[in-house]
Structure formats: structure tokens, C-alpha cells
């Protein structure tokens, strides 16, 4: 078994982890949940001995009677790959782009076994088959960029499981993938766990992911363990408020008091989206038909890459790569505004929030300086930000605050329709529910019409008056 006792991690005299203690038994899958910054990844890196060199680690880590915490970094490295292995969050970047995937899996064998060339190749092909990838021979010689995210994650899993390690740590293995791919990856991890009897620590911010395959759950917050128990206990009777919040965020709750909506503000009929490559038009989605009524929030549910973002750009008038008719019954100027997914990169880092918020009004024209300032302060209040934010820069704000600013930008020019493209998917679950609350409040107070695009059914159900699936409104090409 794995036993962790009194684990403390310090970076530059700041305590990142405080007295962490838990154990994992053979054949068990334990979920480690918490929001970003809760210390769950730090804990796993400490267990695997992969902390960066400026981090100091105290306490006991014992795996199968080996006292890992007594060993030097160099000595511990020997156990990585064959006793402890890691599955990372970002399958797009966790493989070396310049080395064939077969070779990258083979590296593990090269480092830890004395197999000859043929044996190694055999073993690699075998594990590729076991992680349910087709055509192992062909895959062996492919480069990471030729594979999809899900396939790359399988390659990473192959690497992590080829030597049947005693402990596998999976850090948000499905977060970067769409829902279906994520589910199949979870099944794969659970399957490998069953057949190899290895211990698995599954790290996630998403309790639904944990619920799926874990028998036990450890909840972390601010570098401490908040609560620990069997999955059943945690979900049926959480003892701590924080745990309850986490569960609430992922629970399937439908919006109460749905708005009927008035006349159509947007009619999309027979639209087909395309992108141009070398002058040729490639259709992404065909035959799109739907409308948005005044005052309602319409949810469009679709998986990543299906073309929903392209559609939103076309509706907002940011792209003319479509055929068919998009009828907007809104005023031409500033009638439609967008809220983007990533609050980190969509705000100009060199301008103050006040400046960023006033820009749409300046572009629209017809306001005096004083009016603009008043309006900006009013908007800050509406999106529940304090006035002092006016002089701050985006870097000084948290993710939730930034997304509030993005919503403010969209609101300030009094649009008739707002398109929000995955507005909360980059945020932590507790912040997520605050932003969703804000959107609901704005709908009640300002009667805005909104299209909310997301891959997350749970999120859409909470705020939308009507949810349509991408497959329902298109010709089934995605």
C-alpha cells in the first residue's frame, strides 16, 4: 500500500501543503478532489518525487515498504516509470512533438528493463492494443501531432501502464477532453486498475469524474485535507460545507421559473458553416436552423470542435464564412456582443479595467467622458465588482473577476443579444456557480436575450430556458 504521513511542502518558506496524511491500498482507486490551488496536484507530485527543485518536502511517503521520502531525488527517479507512473492533464503537450509515439512508449522499457529490441517492440505494440488503439504497427511510427487528444491520452496511459506499476497517478486525465472521450478514458483507467491490481490516485476538480470510478474520495482545500470517506458517504452525506458546494456545482439541477420569451431576436435558417483552405470551401456543419426569443437564455450543447464557436462568430457578424440566412432583428451597431471562454487571454493585459470597459462606448460614440465613466461604474456594480477595480489591471484579478469584466464589456453597450461561448468552463466550480448566478440575475433585471454555448450539459441546464443539442439543429455533420 501507499502511505503518506505528515506531508508538508514548502516553497520559499510558504507552506503549500499542511500535514497531509492518507493511504491507498492495492487495487483501489482513490479520488483527490478540490479546486485549483487546493494542493491536490502538489500532493501527487510530492508522492511521485517530481516537485520542482525549489520546493522542500517533509514527512513520510512509503510505497510497498520503500521509504521514498528518505531517498534523494536521483534515487527516487529510478522508481518513476516502473513503480510509480503519471498520467497528465494535457495530452496535447505532455508528449515530445519530435519523437514517434512508439519510441516514446519504448523509452520506459529502455530505462527500466533489459529487453532486446524485438521484445521491446513487441511489448509496445501489445500495450498499444491494450489501451484500445487501433493499428498498433502504424501508430508506432506516428508523431503526436497526428493524433487526436483522446488518442494521445491513451498513448500517455500506455506509457504509464506498460510496466504495470504499483501506483498510477492520474492528474485531471479527462479535463482537456470532450465528455465522451473523457468517459472512455476513465473506463480504460478503471479497466487497467482491475486487471493489474495497481493503486490509482485520480485527481480531479470534477466530482462527477471521481464518482464514476473511485471507491474513496479525499477532498482538499488550501493545502489541507477537508474531508475523507467512501464515495457513497461523501455524496450522500457530506460533512463539510465546502464538500457540499462542490457536489452542488456538479449536480443536475434544472432552472426554475423559466422565461417564455417574446418575439424572435434571431432567426438562423439553412445556414451552413465552412472554412477555407487553399481557396477551397470545407463544410463544417450544414443546415443549421434555430431561433432565439427576446428575453430568453438559449443553450446550445455541443462537443468541442463541432463548429459551435464558428457559428457564434457568424451570428455576431465576426465571420462571413457561411451560407444561408442569419436574420438579426437587432440594431446594427453593437446589437450583439460576445463573452469568450478564456478570461485570461481575452483582456488586454496592458490596459486598466476602466479603460477596457469604456472602449465599447468610445467605439460606439456619442458619449461624453463623464457619461462613459458613470456608465462604467454602473456596470461594475451590476456585475458585482467593487469600484476600486476601475484602476486595476487584468493581471491583478482572479479568473472569476475577469469573467465578470468580460460580461461587463458585453453588457455596457446595451446589446440586445449576448453570445456566451463556454463562459464558465475555464473557472473553478464554486466560481462557476457564482458567475451563473450573475447571469441569472442579469436576465431578471435587464431582460437580456442570450445564447450560451457549452459542452457541459449540467451548466446549461442550470441557467438556460431552453437547451438544444447541436445534433438537433444541424444536419448531423460534426
Amino acid at each position, binding site marked *: 500500500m501507499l502511505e503518506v504521513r505528515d506531508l508538508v511542502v514548502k516553497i520559499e518558506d510558504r507552506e503549500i501543503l499542511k500535514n497531509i496524511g492518507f493511504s491507498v491500498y492495492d487495487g483501489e482507486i482513490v479520488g483527490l478532489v478540490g479546486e485549483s490551488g487546493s494542493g491536490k496536484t502538489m500532493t501527487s507530485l510530492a508522492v*511521485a518525487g*517530481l516537485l*520542482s*527543485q*525549489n520546493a522542500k518536502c517533509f514527512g513520510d511517503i512509503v510505497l510497498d515498504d520503500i521509504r521514498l521520502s528518505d531517498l534523494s531525488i*536521483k534515487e527516487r*527517479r*529510478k*522508481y*518513476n*516509470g*516502473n513503480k*510509480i*507512473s*503519471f498520467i*497528465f492533464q*494535457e495530452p496535447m*503537450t*505532455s*508528449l*515530445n*512533438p*519530435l*519523437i514517434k509515439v512508439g519510441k516514446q512508449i519504448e*523509452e*520506459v522499457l529502455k*530505462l*527500466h528493463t533489459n529487453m532486446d529490441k524485438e521484445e521491446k517492440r513487441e511489448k509496445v505494440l501489445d500495450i498499444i492494443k491494450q489501451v484500445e488503439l487501433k493499428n498498433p504497427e502504424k501508430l508506432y511510427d506516428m*508523431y503526436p*501531432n*497526428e493524433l487526436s487528444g483522446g488518442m494521445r491520452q491513451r498513448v*500517455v496511459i500506455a*506509457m*504509464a501502464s506498460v510496466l504495470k506499476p504499483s501506483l498510477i497517478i492520474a492528474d485531471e486525465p479527462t479535463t482537456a477532453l470532450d465528455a465522451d472521450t473523457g468517459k472512455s478514458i476513465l473506463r480504460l483507467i478503471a479497466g487497467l486498475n482491475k486487471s493489474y491490481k495497481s493503486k490509482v490516485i485520480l485527481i480531479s476538480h470534477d466530482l462527477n469524474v471521481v464518482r464514476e470510478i473511485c471507491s474513496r474520495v479525499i477532498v482538499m482545500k488550501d493545502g489541507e485535507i477537508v474531508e475523507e470517506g467512501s464515495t457513497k458517504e461523501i455524496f450522500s452525506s457530506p460533512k463539510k460545507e465546502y464538500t457540499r458546494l462542490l457536489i452542488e456545482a456538479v449536480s443536475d439541477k434544472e432552472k426554475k421559473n423559466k422565461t417564455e420569451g417574446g418575439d424572435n431576436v434571431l432567426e438562423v435558417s439553412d445556414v451552413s458553416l465552412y472554412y477555407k483552405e487553399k481557396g477551397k470551401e470545407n463544410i463544417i456543419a450544414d443546415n443549421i436552423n434555430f431561433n432565439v426569443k427576446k428575453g430568453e437564455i438559449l443553450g446550445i450543447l455541443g462537443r468541442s470542435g463541432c463548429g459551435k464557436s464558428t457559428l457564434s462568430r457568424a451570428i455576431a457578424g465576426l465571420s462571413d464564412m457561411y451560407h444561408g440566412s442569419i436574420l438579426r432583428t437587432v440594431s446594427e451597431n453593437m446589437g450583439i456582443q460576445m463573452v469568450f471562454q478564456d478570461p485570461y487571454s481575452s483582456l488586454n493585459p496592458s490596459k486598466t479595467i476602466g479603460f477596457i470597459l469604456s472602449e465599447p462606448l468610445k467605439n460606439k460614440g456619442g458619449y461624453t467622458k463623464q457619461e462613459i465613466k458613470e456608465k462604467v461604474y454602473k456596470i461594475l456594480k451590476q456585475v458585482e465588482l467593487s469600484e476600486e477595480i476601475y484602476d486595476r489591471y487584468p493581471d491583478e484579478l482572479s479568473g472569476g473577476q475577469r469573467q465578470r469584466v468580460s460580461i461587463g464589456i458585453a453588457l455596457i453597450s446595451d446589446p440586445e443579444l449576448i453570445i456566451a461561448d463556454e463562459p464558465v468552463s475555464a473557472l473553478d466550480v464554486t466560481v462557476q456557480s457564482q458567475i451563473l448566478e450573475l447571469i441569472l440575475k442579469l436576465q431578471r433585471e435587464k431582460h437580456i436575450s442570450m445564447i450560451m454555448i457549452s459542452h457541459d450539459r449540467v451548466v446549461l441546464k442550470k441557467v438556460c430556458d431552453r437547451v438544444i443539442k447541436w445534433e438537433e439543429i444541424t444536419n448531423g455533420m460534426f
Partner: protein
Amino acid sequence: MKYVLKRIGMAAATLLLVSIIVFIMFQIVPGDVVTAKLGTDITQERAEALRNEYGLNDPLLVQYFNWIRGICTGNLGISYSKDIPVGDLLLNNLVVTVSLAFMSLILIIVFAVPVGFWSGYVSGKNTKRAKLFDSIFDGVNQTFMAVPSFFIGILISVVFGIVLKWFAPGKYVSYSENIMDFILYLIPAAISVAVPKIAMLVRFVKASVVGEMNKDYVRTAKSKGMSDIAILIHHVFKNSIITSVTALSVIMAEIFAGSVVVEQVFNLPGLGRLLISSIGTRDYPVVMDIVMYIAIMIITVNLIVDIIYRLTDPRIGASYE
């Protein structure tokens, strides 16, 4: 393959454009070769005869095509000031400049790549000691980067030539006389050209190594149980070389384009010196050909770098097709 052909086509088109611009520019620059050569005190007929001889009375288009045809066939025209074929004039000086460039290039790669890797590896560790090392190393490196080549040339001449008497400053041995001496006497000049460029490339390589060391795939390699040194060799090396090649291509273009001032310092009969003296005597055929040589070198280096890029990085190929 298709890409290579396309890229060569693009390079050729660029060269053509450059040649047109160069030609037009030398039509615009003030100064008359006849006056420069014969003075103002001549008869109208003599001047006219000379103009005819040089083809200066032909229509511009004809002059341009004659020039281009000359470049393609190796007939580079006649030098106004020396009355000998430009080709002969260039050849000697070209050998000096190209040899100097290659020697500098070898020095740059041999020194900058290992030093860049070592320093990147050390500072990539992100510890307190690494940070201290970093600031000292960067300070020293920046000093070398800031010192101009000709100053290093003068320094080398004074210290190793005049004080230590390891070589005779200003001496030049033609390659046709003694090839070994020719190379030996180029070394001080090559070092002067190389030092600032080494510092520049070290900086690039170091930055890209530090960048790569923090990438996710390095963490993956660690989780496989690979030692830091092995990760550096097997994973980081190729990735950071690819990003450093861009920097190297700029540097290469610069040194091939001639180290005009350094040639002056060491009294080397290279293209730089020829360029300066030819501008003085308004020897436009020579100047135009040298400018074209510089353009050809820069474009060719970029072409080669792009093709190497394409061959080594599987990502570029995939996004292109």
C-alpha cells in the same frame, strides 16, 4: 518535395525583385561614372564614346537584362575604375570573405551550442543558486554581445599581435601562396566576428533550453524515470535546436553578408573593402554585384533553414498539408 520546389520558386522570385530594386536604385543615385573617371575637363565626344562603351546609352530595360544575363552566365561586366572584368575582381575577395564567414560560423556553433545548453540546463533548475548563476552569466554574456566586432578586432591585434607577438597584425597571405598561412591569418578576424555572435546565439539557445525544460513533455520524461542529463540529450536537445535555428539563420546571413569593418581592421582584401573602395570610385557594376551577392547569401541561408525546419519538425508538415 512539393514544398521544397515551392520554396525555391519563392526564393527565386524574391531574388528577382531584389535585382529590380537594386538596379533602379543605382539609376537614381547621383554621380556620373564618366565624370568620376575622366574628370570634367573632357570633350563631349569622349564622354559619349565612353558611355557607349559601357552601354549606358542603351534603354534601361536592355541594360537591366544585360546585367541579369551577365550574372546568370558569370559575365559580370567590366569594372569602371580598374578596367578588368568584375568577375576576376570579385573572385579573390569573395574567397577571403566566404572563408572568413565559414570560419566564424564554425567558431560560433562550436562555442555557442554547448555553452548555451550548459547554461540553460543550469539556470533551468530554478533554485536559488541557479538564479544567482543566471544573473552573473547573463551580465557577462550581454557584455560580449554589446562589444562591436571591430573593437574586439583592435583588442586582439593589440594584445596578441603587438604585445604578445603571436601574429603580425595587418599581414595577409593569399590562399594561392600558402593555404595554411592564409587560414592562420584569418583566425584573429574570425574570432572578432564570432565573439558577439556567439554571445547572441548563447542567449537564444539558453532561452530555448530553459523554455523547453519547463515543458510538459519534460515532466513526462521525468515521470518515466529518466535522469535530467538523459532528458536534456534525448528530449530537449532537438526541440531547442529547432527554435535556435531561426536565430542562427539571422546570424549566418549577417556574417555572410560580409564583415566590412573587421576586414578593414585586419587589412583583409575581402568584399567589404572592395565595396567601400568601389563606392568611392562610383564603380557601380562592382557595387551592384556585391549587393546582389549579399542578397543571394541571405535568401539562400533562409531557404536552407526553412527546408531544414520542414524536414526536422513533423508539426510543420502536418499543418501545411
